[in-house]
């Protein structure tokens, strides 16, 4: 376990070097969130009918999405693994006295958590003070949110590790990742909050894994889902995570069996 922790902390420190990129990203996201909020304000002013979410809940949802999407959307491919596969140095990974799946999984945890911490904290301050983000609905909602966020991180890393493993078969993996990312975007709630989709789509959205990435934590935070009702949602996140970990391990075992290391 200690060695995986070392992988996490080393990647973490490396990624924290890119502060300028984080500042620029932060400004862009604030502006973006503001546009989204104005659009939703206009929609809510266009109707008097009651909606499955209130406008303040939507505002929370947007800011939480902006603050944490780097962490919870499996949109980014681990470029170093891509390079390793292309150049062939991936065989060194096999020499390490570590479980390869756990190694790649830990890399993925670190590369998500570090930029998120950089972005999320200032965003909570800025959006909380000036732009309509409310504190969690209650202490229990806040605790439930943190738990769901952890679940989202694990789910996201399980999906993204499968994508890294898929590179062993096709180095055109970039496209595959982006296709999955595009589908994941709309199905996770980053484009519009999932409850605002038509009612007939809700069952499918609730079963698919992607809501666990963003929709679940955001709605627990704002009290749209009460802490008492959250248990099945944690189970949903965990079940999908375990399924993706199992699939990832299976694929990796097959992939490394095919791998042939050429000469010295």
């Amino acid at each position, binding site marked *: 376990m200690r060695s995986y922790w070392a992988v996490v902390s080393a990647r973490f420190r490396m990624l924290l070097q890119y502060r300028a990129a984080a500042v620029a990203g932060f400004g*862009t996201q604030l502006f*973006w969130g503001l*546009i989204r909020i104005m659009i939703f304000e206009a*929609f809510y002013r*266009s109707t008097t009918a009651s909606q499955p979410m209130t406008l303040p809940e939507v505002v929370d949802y947007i800011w939480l999405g902006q603050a944490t999407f780097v962490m919870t959307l499996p949109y980014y491919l681990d470029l170093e693994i891509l390079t390793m596969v292309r150049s062939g140095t991936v065989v060194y990974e096999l020499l390490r006295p570590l479980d390869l799946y756990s190694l790649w999984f830990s890399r993925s945890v670190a590369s998500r958590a570090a930029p998120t911490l950089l972005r999320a904290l200032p965003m909570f301050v800025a959006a909380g003070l000036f732009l309509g983000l409310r504190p969690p609905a209650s202490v229990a909602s806040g605790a439930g949110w943190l738990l769901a966020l952890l679940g989202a991180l694990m789910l996201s890393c399980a999906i993204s590790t499968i994508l890294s493993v898929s590179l062993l078969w*096709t180095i055109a993996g*970039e496209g*595959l990742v982006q*296709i999955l990312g*595009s589908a994941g975007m709309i199905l996770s709630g980053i484009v519009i909050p999932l409850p605002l989709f038509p009612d007939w789509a809700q069952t499918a959205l609730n079963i698919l894994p992607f809501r666990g990435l963003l929709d679940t934590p955001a709605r627990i935070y704002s009290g749209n889902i009460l802490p008492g009702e959250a248990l099945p949602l944690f189970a949903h996140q965990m079940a999908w995570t375990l399924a993706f970990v199992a699939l990832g391990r299976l694929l990796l075992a097959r992939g490394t069996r095919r791998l042939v290391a050429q000469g010295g």
Partner: protein
Amino acid sequence: MREGIRLYLRYISISARGQMQYPASFILLTISGLLATGGEFLGIWALLHRFGSLKGWTLPEVALFYGIVQIAFSISDATSRGFDAFAAMLKRGDFDRVLLRPRSSALQLAGQELTMRRIGRFSQALAVLLWSASALGAIWSPAKVGLVVASILGGACLFFGLIVLQATLAFWTTESLEIVNTVTYGGVETAQFPLTIYRPWFRRFFTAVIPLAFISYFPALAILGRPAPPVLPWIAPLAGLLFLLLALRIWQFGVRQYCSTGS
């Protein structure tokens, strides 16, 4: 001029052939671009489905705004890659080589790459625009079709101009200023909807500072037959072209005072 165009065509045909060397990757990236923007439109559809209308604007009307700005952006995105990657080029010192050649630097950068996979976003947006055109019914005249085309071209010029400005800033900062993405990507997001839905300061910003309103909102008013100022909607797309020309002038100023990093 004629020779410049010929050279540009030659540049981009080489770039296109290069990208076609990896057909699987090209197809997957194209599909993903199509899905990404398709997803955004799905979101707009879902919102209008749930809320009925957006302050009196219907789905086909919003789709017209969406189609114009997304097509415009996909054109600029496909053609501006050279300027987009300019900061990195500057850092490597490769820009010095560009300066040694007896052709304008803007032409060479524009000819760096024609990003073929943007055809995904382009065709998705075109499909939305065509659907909107048929759903809007009998409002069309040759002049209005011309105005749609002019708006798209004006918009492409505007976004191209923004990317040129972003590249120009790199002469002084040697960093790519990601903050400009705020007005490019943010502008695309904004112009997917009629400008009237936003707060006044925001509308003023995207009218007076970045002339986004001129390439989508004003022309769309005339096309949809909504109350609009007289003549303005019909000449508004020119603002995009003027913006690009201005951006290129600033670019030339940047080139003249450029001093290599020496790397």
